[in-house]
């Protein structure tokens, strides 16, 4: 990055307009009054399924657990024809090899968290090694965390450069930058972190690790979608969005899609540009989809838990 270029990028980032939280809440509430029925609902629910990053990020993850989840990723509900598979699975770097094997021959992508996830409290060397491990093991996508401590102490250049270097280490893997909005606290910070991440080379910006509450609130996602919109207007480059954590119902997922549809437009309504990071969303969506067709809800026991 050239010095002068970076200077002008920071001018752009600092020029972002302030955000009024009350106004954002009101706007989000308005999205939630959208009533999605019938065909639109079926289409929306199928989109949601195809956008899920099926996730397991636990200390107790084992090859057994990851293999079973990977099978579910491309066998969501085999009793029902014409269902999409999820977009990706999301695992720790140590599990990427296992996932790679389990998903061989499918088009399900493998995303791996990296950079001392979830806190990011390590040095650059370790973070780059973490990314390398994931990429070398076959990850298609890297979900990094930003250094929130540095961000909150005003070291924006540090955060920017770190993202840039991680991006370089990713090679062809797409980079999702997790802002951990629950620790940034204000929407103004969310906006600033989004701008830094996009200008530093993120392919996706992502709300949360799932380890901190609140995670992907609609207010935060809305703010990030607007940042993506402004970035697109300024540069012509599309950036993806991934809300993660706390989206476990179809209704909330559909309202997220309504926001994408009305802010970024239909070009973003594809798993190349929008993802849900979720562990339990898929079954609720399946249940709603089947209810649409049969008219009645089935017991949760008819949907597999992997």
């Amino acid at each position, binding site marked *: 990055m050239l010095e002068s270029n970076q200077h002008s990028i920071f001018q752009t980032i600092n020029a972002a*307009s302030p*955000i009024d939280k*009350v106004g954002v809440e009101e706007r989000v509430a308005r999205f939630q*009054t959208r009533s999605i*029925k*019938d065909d*639109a609902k079926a289409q929306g629910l199928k989109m949601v399924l195809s956008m899920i990053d099926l996730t397991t990020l636990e200390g107790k993850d084992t090859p057994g657990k990851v293999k079973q989840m990977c099978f579910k990723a491309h066998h969501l509900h085999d009793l029902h024809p014409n269902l999409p598979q999820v977009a990706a699975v999301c695992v720790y770097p140590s599990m990427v090899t296992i996932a790679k094997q389990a998903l061989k021959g499918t088009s399900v992508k493998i995303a791996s968290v990296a950079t001392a996830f979830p806190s990011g409290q390590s040095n650059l060397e370790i973070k780059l090694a973490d990314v390398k491990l994931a990429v070398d093991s076959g990850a298609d996508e890297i979900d990094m965390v930003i250094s929130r401590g540095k961000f909150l102490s005003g070291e924006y250049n540090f955060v920017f450069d770190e993202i840039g270097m991680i991006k370089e280490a990713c090679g062809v893997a797409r980079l999702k930058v997790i802002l951990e909005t629950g620790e940034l606290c204000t929407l103004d910070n969310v906006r600033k972190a989004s701008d830094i991440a996009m200008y530093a080379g993120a392919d996706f910006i992502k709300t949360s690790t799932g380890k901190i509450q609140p995670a992907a609130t609609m207010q935060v996602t809305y703010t990030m979608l607007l940042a993506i919109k402004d970035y697109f207007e300024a540069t012509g480059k*599309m950036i993806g969005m991934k809300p993660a954590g706390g989206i476990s119902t179809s209704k909330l997922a559909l309202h997220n899609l309504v926001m994408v549809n009305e802010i970024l437009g239909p070009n973003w309504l594809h798993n190349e540009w929008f993802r849900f990071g979720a562990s339990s969303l898929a079954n609720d969506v399946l249940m709603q989809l089947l209810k649409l067709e049969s008219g009645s809800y089935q017991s949760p026991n008819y949907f597999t838990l992997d």
Partner: protein
Amino acid sequence: MENKKNTSKDHQWLYSPSLESTSHIEIKDKYELFINNEWIAPTSNKYFDTINPADEKVLSKIAWANAQDVDKAVKAARKAYDEVWSKISAGDRSKYIFRLARMMQEKARELAVIETLDAGKPIRESRDIDVPLACNHFFYYAGWADKLDYAFPNQKTESLGVVGQIIPWNFPLMMAAWKIAPALAAGNTVVLKPAETTSLTALKLAEIIKEAGIPPGVINIITGHGDTGEALVKHPDINKIAFTGSTQVGKAIQKALVGTGKRSTLELGGKSANIIFDDAPIDQAVEGIVNGIFFNQGHVCCAGSRLYVQENIAEKLVEKLKHRMKSLILGNPLDKNTDIGAINTREQLQTIEKYIQIGIQEGSVIFQCEGALPAIGFYCKPTIFTNVSQSSVLSQEEIFGPVLTIQTFRTIDEVIQKANNSPYGLAAGVWTDKGSKIFNLTSKLKAGVVWANTYNKFDPASPFGGYKESGFGREGGMHGLGAYLKIIK
């Protein structure tokens, strides 16, 4: 990076129709006049149609009251005032008003659907704004009825007597509530005349009044055209006229009242300025602009119809506004996803279209949302004009439709001057991240209501009313109560 722009239509996601059900509502074929808690045929035996502006179909026939009918209603109100309403305890008045509020809440869904059918406004608005606010006005003033001594400490107040109230078609039920609730709480009885194109929810309210057992004659609802309203204004036994509507009619009413000793409050037109500074939260400001001018198809007396944008952000803001307008859904008001419903009357639609033509002739630059309008019904696309100046007709006259004029400004002093440079002074909006700027403007703008970083927010506790040709007197809050009382010592 594969930043190919995907222009295929594969990803189009259009919302399926989501119509609010009309199976639970009851609209009679014909409505009589509501006098003394009874339904009375008009003396003239004349009726007029009320139609659904979204499909131009007749919803019902409405009685047309003449001067004789008005006299009956005023006599009923006077009798109820003398014998019942001014005699019962303030606590009992309060109980009656609370009962009305609760019963309206119970029938909220039906009221919302009928409001949407009769007025053309989106069900989202009648369901989430009109009807809840109408109920809240009754709840709020029910609470004041037995606490008047606290509203005006160390003073003694007295009710006025019989009040004539004339309301417009833009918020039919809500305006009825704004008028009736404070009048009753203060101890008056009323004769209310709804607008001729939107009588239905007032008549549903009459059914609720009867069911609630409000003493006969306390609230009388008479329907009709301008002549009915005129008869009410001129009736000698009225103590006060409360009117909401056009400035033109307001002036006529004021002339008619001169020398009669009747009190009056007038809430009239507006051409309110919505001011966006360069330090404003721009995306939220865009939302505020949309709510300011496109709420209820722009049929809002305090609509933010004159937009002033600081010149250094004007281009960016207008682009964002246009983008936001593209996601507004215009269509069947009964659809829960409709943002922009029908214009209330054909006549009003023609007025709006006339102004749009004037704007084009004046050389202003028009932008409207794409897409076709429904084949039947009265619809107008959300419209914005740039290249407008203070001298354009478009920025001076009240259009009362979804038409926004956009002007730029350079300095605070300039925008204050321009915002105040209008015969009207109902409301204003100020958008800035800087608190001191807000206070500077609120003290200098000649407008009854100034919203900061929001627009078109209403609450029963907050007074509402205008400067200059936007009228006088306040509705809502303690001020609204005072408008229905006289201070006797």
